[in-house]
């Protein structure tokens, strides 16, 4: 009870800080320097229509690399955590009901569509909302569906690992190419910018986002698979 009271008191303090932030908050009337630069320069410089994508993949590409690394790390650690000590426990007996026919058929039908949709989302990230992360998540949900329909099926850990590694290496590699061929690490202008608004434009952005999408999809799949397989080991 004392703890609850203390928490309320402290959160009142934090709330006061937040209130202070809000009271002092004056919405901008015009874009600030940074945002104006992005609004004006993204199209001519990078050839991307989606400014958010341009920022994520190129201007703040280092953040994104870090972000992808976060997922990589999480997947690796989830694997580590779950692998830890599990070998010495007796495998649990599975007595789940077998998946229904409906789910199986549905999965077979839906999976290709989902994967395709995911791929669409990440390849068009520079043009429309969406991109590698969203696309990757969609791909992972396809995997999830597979997990649900074949709960006992062993997944190709190896395939997932190879996809995530290759995608990661490719991301870093493209970044390094930026140093060699363009203005610096993660510069997307190693490829021609192409025609504004088309699929194959904006330099390396679609390529990077594809790898990001693959990697994100692989990481999430790896996490899900690891979690789902914990009891089978």
């Amino acid at each position, binding site marked *: 009870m004392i703890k609850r009271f203390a928490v309320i008191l402290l959160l009142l303090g934090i709330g006061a800080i937040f209130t202070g932030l809000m009271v002092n908050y004056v919405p901008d009337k015009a874009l600030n320097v940074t945002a104006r630069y992005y609004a004006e320069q993204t199209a001519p410089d990078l050839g991307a229509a989606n400014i958010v994508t341009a920022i994520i993949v190129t201007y703040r590409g280092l953040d994104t690399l870090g972000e992808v690394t976060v997922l990589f790390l999480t997947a690796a650690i989830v694997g580590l955590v779950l692998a830890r000590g599990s070998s010495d426990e007796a495998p649990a007996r599975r007595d789940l009901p077998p998946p229904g026919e409906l789910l199986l058929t549905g999965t077979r039908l839906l999976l290709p569509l989902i994967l395709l949709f995911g791929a669409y989302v990440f390849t068009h990230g520079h043009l429309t909302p969406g991109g590698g992360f969203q696309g990757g998540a969609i791909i992972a949900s396809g995997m999830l569906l597979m997990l649900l329909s074949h709960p006992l099926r062993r997944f190709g850990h190896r395939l997932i690992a190879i996809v995530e590694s290759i995608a990661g290496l490719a991301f870093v590699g493209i970044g390094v190419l930026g140093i060699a061929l363009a203005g610096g690490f993660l510069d997307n202008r190693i490829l021609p910018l192409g025609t504004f608004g088309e699929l194959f434009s904006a330099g390396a952005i679609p390529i990077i986002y594809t790898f990001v999408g693959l990697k994100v999809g692989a990481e999430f799949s790896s996490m*899900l698979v690891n979690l789902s397989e914990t009891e089978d080991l």
Partner: protein
Amino acid sequence: MNLNIGMALLLAIGMIGTAIMATRGKRSLGISILAAGLASLLASVMFLLLGAPDVAMTEAAIGSGLTTFLFFFVLGRVRRGEND
């Protein structure tokens, strides 16, 4: 304009309600998780209103979708462990 604000208010009330539902210790964990996912989903609608479709997509796919699944995966394992 007013429509937007009205929607935003509705969403806000919805989010706060679901958030409280998610964090109150009284309900079952499953409901908490669902409520948190719902709050996240409502937030993604809010993002759309705020002119951030990219964020909205991400929040919907990752924040509310995948996270909720992750929760249920673990919850399922733990529940089964509790039955042992």
